[in-house]
């Protein structure tokens, strides 16, 4: 321990977590975990049998389309649906008034003074907000119905700029909240003022991270269907449903046992479907209104404008304090987050930032002042990184600036400040704990994969001989994983619901023929590899081939406790759940076999789908033989044992502690800490502002690797999304609050042409607190790429004073800087 805030309870928590994860016996050599394996999900996806929400065939299905607000801020004066209802095939028109009359506000992690319904009530607060739903026999007719609506608004002043939103005379979005400041809090950990006073160097920056979002191929969609016994069946591609089905039931004023969510595989999420509750709530509500199955699948316009998945939009005044030798001593962050019109996730995205507030660096003083502001824009949801990637960018911007001022190379200043391997577990200011790490090993590995000396020489040569500009960026960032739910509420002194559970469950069944089924409990497939992970863990535990394991998903009526994917938690959590169930099942198998063969159970082991005597493998039974006994020959079972071969296990978060009542310590909430180093070499054309890639290295440490190819996929895809956020993607609103990015003509997602050819490397520093030592790695390159791109562009155009402060950095920004610098040079010469 390196922190001075040690106490017994804290140490006990660490000890318990470490003990729970300790390897049982000498089983260290692994046969499946760590092996590159093709995904078991792929064959059905590649042959068009994904079974997505729009593929669902339900008798009598009707379709809803949404009238979206054309104004940023306004009062709904009237809705005339006469013409719409006159269209043959249009079944019903549903409005916010219906919602207010018949349901409760939607689930909400923000203040209760900022309520929301799936259709706007009284007011509209952003362009694209859902106002009216038209239900018809087909989606075509539903859209005809939407076209035929006559909706009148009284426009109110649009509140677009978050700083103006805070001014006294700004129009209010939520009159009941009394202010456009949704939330404000300042945390000070350590002696921040003293650190800055003592410092030899203080660097500061004004930064803006613009809005982008995960853009899965498939939008969010749901079908509501009135079922038997008054049960409302909801089919949806939202995730985490076993965590929130009772909240949807609450919104719909139904007892929770009268709503069942049937998980439908999602065609990608990247966070956009994390707790995406509004679409299933709406589909369920519409089905109840017409007493028929209703499908609402967002089209691309719906999705871009109002899917509640726009991500962080933050304005920073940030400072870093250092001593003259480059040692970081403190950080001071003042952030205004433009959250949009509602606050469904509260300020959890800043909890993410605080989970790794000091990055990989060893300093103890951190201040974080947050103002969450309401504006007439789509509200924020989740996107890969969930706000921690933004903080990474800010910290790395400051570290780069300090390095430049101190004349240190980027790798030198970082190496100087790294938390050292022997300093783990490491408690950071704020209270979160880093479980393990070897940051120098990651940096060294990255440096070994790129010839930086060559590129530094080449940079000079190209500038002098060919008038070309290349730049080198290097960042080292954290990749927290396995969230615990406390990060959503420790912001509030009197939280409404201070939840501390965030478990995951699994059921393993060996059927009478000895074949394996695994039941997962909190999601369907969401584009990642949940089935591959589950199959590999079962294979590791029982020695069966992974592709022989069948994976299914429970509906919410059958689901055991689960939280679902998010915050890079799935692999760690579901592995814990499966391994827990496997241990129970292994015990039963061994007991049956020992009883059958009349040998002591402690002499037996399970290897290659057999249970056999240690040292005498010829004495044993196949799992099929044991299974047959378990199901069909009760009289052959040990006394007191019941028939069957199925076990379930609920795995709680491996290491979480309560925040202190005064919030001077936020507790452990995100302890499984990955790390990475990205290095980029880019060319920037000063006269077009266009960038090209010359080299790119990404080395990640996600603890023990389960499947190298899928982890590589995470790094690659995350890097691509980082490229999007840094250079291309922009969910833009004009000064009237009109949405400018409503199609993929303007919202620019990088294609294979725009992303670098990456060299990937891995370092494995196991976590002491998880099964096999796995850490989450799902958020991949997005944690690092915006920082490394910013650094490379600055480096390339340093002579023009280029300094990236605003993402995405567009070609026009780059050229404007170049032209201004040339103008200045001209003036100086004359």
């Amino acid at each position, binding site marked *: 321990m390196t922190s001075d805030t040690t106490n017994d309870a804290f140490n006990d928590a660490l000890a318990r977590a470490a003990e729970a994860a300790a390897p049982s016996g000498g089983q260290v050599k692994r046969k499946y975990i760590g092996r590159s394996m093709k995904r078991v999900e792929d064959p059905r996806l590649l042959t068009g049998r994904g079974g997505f929400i729009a593929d669902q065939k339900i008798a009598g299905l009707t379709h809803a389309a949404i009238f979206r607000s054309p104004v940023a801020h306004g009062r709904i004066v009237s809705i005339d649906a006469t013409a719409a209802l006159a269209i043959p095939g249009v079944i019903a028109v549903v409005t916010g008034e219906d919602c207010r009359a018949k349901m409760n506000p939607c689930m909400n992690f923000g203040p209760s003074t900022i309520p929301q319904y799936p259709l706007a009530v009284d007011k509209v607060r952003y362009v694209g907000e859902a106002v009216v739903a038209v239900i018809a026999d087909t*989606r*075509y007719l539903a*859209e*005809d119905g939407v*076209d035929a609506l006559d909706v009148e608004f009284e426009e109110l002043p649009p509140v677009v700029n978050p700083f103006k939103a805070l001014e006294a005379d700004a129009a209010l979005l939520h009159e009941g909240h009394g202010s456009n400041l949704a939330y404000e809090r300042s945390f000070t950990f350590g002696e921040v003022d003293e650190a800055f006073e003592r410092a030899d160097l203080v660097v500061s920056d004004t930064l803006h991270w613009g809005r982008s979002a995960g853009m899965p191929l498939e939008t969010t969609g749901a079908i509501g269907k009135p079922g038997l016994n008054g049960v409302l069946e909801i089919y949806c591609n939202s995730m985490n449903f076993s965590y929130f089905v009772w909240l949807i039931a609450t919104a719909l004023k139904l007892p929770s046992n009268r709503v069942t969510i049937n998980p439908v595989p999602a065609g990608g999420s990247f966070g956009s479907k994390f707790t995406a509750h509004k679409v299933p709530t709406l589909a369920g509500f519409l089905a109840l209104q017409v007493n028929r199955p209703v499908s609402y699948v967002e*089209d*691309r*316009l719906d999705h871009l404008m109002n899917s509640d998945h726009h991500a962080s939009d933050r304005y920073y005044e940030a400072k870093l304090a250092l001593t003259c030798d480059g040692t970081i001593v403190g950080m001071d962050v003042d952030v205004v987050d433009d959250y949009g019109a509602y606050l469904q996730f509260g300020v959890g995205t800043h909890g993410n930032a605080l989970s790794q507030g000091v990055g990989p660096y060893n300093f103890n003083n951190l201040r974080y002042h947050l103002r969450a502001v309401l504006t007439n824009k789509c509200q924020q949801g989740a996107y890969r990184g969930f706000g921690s990637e933004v903080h990474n960018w800010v910290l790395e911007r400051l570290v780069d600036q300090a390095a430049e001022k101190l004349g240190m190379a980027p790798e030198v200043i970082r190496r100087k400040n790294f938390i050292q391997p022997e300093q783990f577990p490491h408690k950071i200011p704020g209270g979160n704990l880093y479980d393990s790490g070897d940051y120098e090993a990651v940096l060294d590995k990255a440096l070994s994969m790129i010839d930086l000396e060559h590129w530094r020489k080449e940079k000079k040569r190209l500038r002098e001989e060919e008038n070309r500009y290349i730049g080198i960026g290097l960042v080292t960032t954290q990749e927290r994983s396995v969230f615990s739910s406390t990060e959503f509420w420790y912001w509030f002194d009197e939280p409404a619901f201070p939840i501390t559970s965030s478990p995951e469950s699994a059921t393993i069944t060996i059927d009478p023929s000895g074949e394996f089924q695994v039941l997962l409990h909190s999601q369907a497939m969401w584009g990642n590899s949940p089935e591959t992970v589950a199959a590999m863990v079962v294979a590791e535990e029982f020695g069966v081939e992974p592709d022989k394991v069948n994976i299914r998903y429970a509906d919410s009526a059958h689901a055991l406790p689960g939280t679902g994917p998010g915050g890079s938690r799935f692999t760690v959590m579901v592995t814990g759940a499966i391994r827990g169930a496997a241990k129970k099942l292994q015990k039963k198998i061994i007991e049956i076999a020992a009883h059958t063969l009349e040998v002591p159970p402690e002499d037996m082991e399970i290897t290659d789908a057999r249970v056999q005597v240690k040292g005498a493998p010829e004495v044993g039974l196949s799992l099929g033989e044991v299974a047959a006994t378990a199901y069909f020959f009760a009289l052959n079972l040990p006394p007191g044992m019941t028939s069957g071969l199925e076990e379930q296990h609920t795995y709680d978060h491996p290491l979480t502690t309560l925040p202190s009542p005064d919030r001077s310590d936020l507790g452990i909430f995100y302890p499984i800490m990955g790390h990475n180093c990205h290095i980029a070499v880019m060319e920037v054309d000063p*006269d*077009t*502002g*266009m960038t090209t890639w010359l080299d790119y290295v990404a080395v990640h440490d996600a603890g023990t690797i389960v499947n190298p190819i899928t982890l590589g996929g995470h790094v690659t895809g995350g890097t691509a999304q980082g490229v999007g956020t840094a250079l*291309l993607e*922009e969910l*833009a609103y004009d000064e009237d609050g009109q949405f*400018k*990015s409503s*199609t993929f*003509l*303007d919202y*620019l997602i*990088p*294609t294979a*042409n*725009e992303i670098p050819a990456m060299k990937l490397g891995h370092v494995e520093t196991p976590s002491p607190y998880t099964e096999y030592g796995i850490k989450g790695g799902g958020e991949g390159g997005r944690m690092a790429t915006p920082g490394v791109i910013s650094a490379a562009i600055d480096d390339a155009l340093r002579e023009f004073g280029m300094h990236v402060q605003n993402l995405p950095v*567009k*070609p*026009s920004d780059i*050229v*404007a800087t170049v*032209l201004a610098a040339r103008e200045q040079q001209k003036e100086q010469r004359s």
Partner: protein
Amino acid sequence: MKPPRFAYYDPDTVAEAVELKARFETDAVVLAGGQSLVPMLATRLAKPDALLDINRISSLQQLEVGPTHVEFGALVRQYQLETDPLVARNVPLLAAVTHYIGHVENRHRGTVGGSLAHADSAAELPTAAVTLDAEMVIEGPAGRRVEAARDFFAGWMTSTIAPDELLVAVRFPITPADAGWGFVEVARREGDFALAAAAAQLRLDEAGRVSEIAIGLASISDRPLRATEVEAQLLGQLPTADAVAVAARAIEEQVTASDDMHATHSYRRHLAATVTQRAVLEAVGRAQEGNRS
């Protein structure tokens, strides 16, 4: 994103198509490759009463090389411009610009006539047509007429095709063997509409001076433009790097496109000059190579 109800017609001949156009006038739209129209229908930006699908008209699918011109039927697919050696040999600039239209999937469906009639100022084919002095062949109830490309583009997404007329072909002059050409486009991503693009074609006399020059710009105005002032400055001059750089600046005055989310006006001015300079230098290089060989 579902289109509203419309009547669908698929005429077999130009005469039938023209008759339908005359009947529906502005209430009909023509479906060729559909690469711009179908998204407009799906987003209900276009709500026509009738859709005239001209894909069955075989006479519009011909590519003919004549003594002075290559004539492309309106339905010739863009990929053919890109890949047919006849095009590369006879109008090399046209083959080169086509590569920049969207992505290969778009070019397989997208047609020559569709892109020209759509008249997007950011599009490559209209820019090539203006640069190379192509001629549009337009048929209406009164018969055929021919219009110079420079007169054809009449404003933002607007051409001189009357509501009762159909664009049936475009003729590109065959490029002289000693001409050099260049094309430079800057777009935010590969396949996106140009933020600015310049096409240039020129010839040099025996002294190496510019004897003929044509430069066309995409995406700087409401329609594709010829860089007349730049052309005038370079005509008769030795096209040195400095001379080209200075002359290219003249295009800035022609940039009228206002700020949008991808480019500010001042950025576009600089970019227009940059792509003009680079396209001309590329053309000079080719012309000099051609003259040497």
